[in-house]
């Protein structure tokens, strides 16, 4: 377990797994909602992402009011909830997964706050540590309200990933960067999640603002293709986070009634495309010959 105070001060991971995932080149961080569209298929889908090259996987624990999500992920959340996903079932899901990469739970604060017999985030974090999760992303929990969760994460050695938006500057940026651990989630553009046909120009400015902070920078929101991934990593990102483009594959499979194996294989190949793009971008930025 890492030292809590040191974690907050220097941005390194409380849990070394996450930092290590970014240590050897660009990290590919896919997202799927756990239990979308059903428990068994979803297990196969997450495992397919690892085969496709995932370095960290963000697993969504569905909340009924996902205010930071666009229509694609919102629909995934609805499918997963209708499929019976609950916080406890989510932890069982993590235990049932056969993957070796670190897993980060992405959810909303009310579910974390309500879990267990005492109010507050501690029981949730304790259970997350038990099942082997590495950290959290909580889109509706700004740094100002995060102390109780930060303390619980420090106690159990988990990372707390914060999102930095294109609008985040000055003192707010300092405050967030003093609390973040694992990696920082760089929101590529304003708005909610969703795949885009082009990569936002706001990304570069955001990466520039973060250049002096010694913590891995993973860019998310709108990344859809290997080419997007390549450009973002070439532009300075340490990793890419992709959700909606993968959730779209799950949704199409569910709608067409395809077998879980067919959908899993499509996810694996999409993952490979995205990871490949990230590696090409890295090669442009840091050619093999210059690596130490």
């Amino acid at each position, binding site marked *: 377990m890492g030292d809590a105070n040191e974690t907050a001060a220097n941005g390194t991971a409380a849990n070394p797994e996450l930092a290590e995932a970014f240590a050897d080149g660009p990290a590919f961080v896919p997202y799927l909602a756990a239990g979308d569209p059903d428990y068994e298929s979803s297990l196969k889908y997450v495992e397919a992402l690892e085969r496709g090259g995932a370095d960290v996987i963000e697993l969504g624990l569905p*909340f*009924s*009011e*996902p*205010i*930071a*999500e*666009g229509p694609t992920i*919102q629909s995934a959340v*609805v499918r997963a*909830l209708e499929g019976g996903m*609950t*916080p*406890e079932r989510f932890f069982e899901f993590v235990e049932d997964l056969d993957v070796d990469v670190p897993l980060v739970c992405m959810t*909303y*604060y*009310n*579910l974390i*706050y*309500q*879990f267990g017999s005492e*109010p507050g985030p501690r029981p949730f974090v304790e259970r997350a540590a038990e099942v082997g999760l590495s950290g959290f992303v909580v*889109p*509706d*929990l*700004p740094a*100002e*309200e995060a102390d109780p969760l930060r303390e619980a994460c420090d106690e159990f050695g988990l990372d707390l990933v*914060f*999102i*930095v*938006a*294109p*609008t*985040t*500057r000055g003192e*707010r940026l300092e405050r*967030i960067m003093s609390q973040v651990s694992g990696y920082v989630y760089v*929101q590529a553009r*304003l*708005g*909610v999640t969703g795949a885009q046909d082009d990569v936002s120009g706001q990304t570069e400015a955001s990466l520039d603002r973060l250049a002096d902070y010694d913590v891995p920078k993973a860019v998310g929101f709108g990344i859809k293709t290997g080419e997007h991934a390549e450009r973002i990593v070439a532009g300075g990102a340490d990793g890419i986070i992709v959700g909606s483009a993968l959730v779209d594959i799950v949704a199409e499979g569910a709608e067409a009634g395809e077998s879980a194996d067919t959908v899993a294989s499509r996810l694996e190949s999409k993952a490979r495309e995205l990871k490949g793009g990230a590696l090409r971008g890295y090669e442009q930025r840091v050619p093999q010959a210059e690596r130490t």
Partner: protein
Amino acid sequence: MTQTYADGKFGEYGGQYVPEALMPAIEELTDAYERYVLENEDGFMDDFRARLRDFGGRPTPTQYAERLSDRYGTDVYLKREDLVHGGAHKLNNALGQVLLAKYMGKERIVAETGAGQHGTATAMAAAHLDMPCEIYMGETDINRQRPNVFRMRLNGSEVNPVTTGRGTLKEAISETMRDWATNVEDTHYVIGSVVGPHPFPAMVRDFQAVISEEAREQLREKTGGLPDSVLACAGGGSNTMGAFAHFVDDAEPRSADGSSGGEPRDDAGVDLYAVEAGGSSLSVDEEAGVAPNSASLSTGGEGVLHGARTKILQDADGQIMESHSVSAGLDYAGVGPELAQLVDDGRVNAVNVDDDGALEAFHRLSQLEGIIPALESAHAFGYLENNYEDLGDVVLVNVSGRGDKDLETVIEETEKRDIEAAPSLSEFSGGF
């Protein structure tokens, strides 16, 4: 008047639980609230009050309700927010926020609406102040509040249907937050009640506090004192906090028998009653994730919804429940954080009236006083009907809005029930 709560917290409630992209906008809004609203920078509050008077039609009267007073043997006064321009208290807040957005240099307004009253008020304020405006409204609510949808469009606003979930206010708020997160740099979100992240709960209360500021003065003129009780319906709680704000400090308890103990009313306390929608039942269907009521103060638990920690209707896991009320304006799974704190403190009594009681009261007030109340307000009159003996000698009821918007619902729902005071409405069914 209640405190400013500069840190945005009401005890454990309140706060700012929103996506990071919105935080700079919320900081900017907090700064604007403190400067323009609290400190009257650039004469903002003078401008606001002048517009409330000339555009909004304020002050509204506090009327003595003769026949209700005869019926209950107690003096009943009505704060007539149904007479504000647009037909509801909602204009007080909408005008304040759209004007504030103008002072802040914003170029676009978004808002959500449940019953359509807030959307209508925002559309009117936006037209009055020449601001482009888009309004999100659940599809279910669009179907049961068509006249208000038409009014919003007449005033030049876009109405965007929200089809997620059950298509009511909860979903409309989530959708408006998404629009705001996308367009935050030039857009202001006019939240319709004392809910959401700080500074909205305090700011909306301040814009609505004109209700109790006027009522307090008007009652003093008419009776020489304060009311024994103030009743207001509570969904999100904006008319409630507006009606309570200037009475919250009058907390000296009355004697147990409900009288003012022989003392002048000025020295006695004012009891505050937030009347929630009991819907069809106060019980909860955990399996279906449905609460057949909207009584989050009476039956909800502490949690985080739409930017604030407050009392919410949720299941054991923390998933937000679908709420229900015959009144679209009360149909919300949360409530303002300040109201939650005032209830915890024992300063406000959280009570509720079910759909049947509200409909009966709707017909009763229409026939006895010639006032067709909003179905929201009818909940407060339903409580008065069954509890007048406990409310003291002078009761103030806030008529939060007028009921024209609810006529289709009333026709449909009245036909399902045996309501003594109701006229036959069968000739109107199937379309109004």
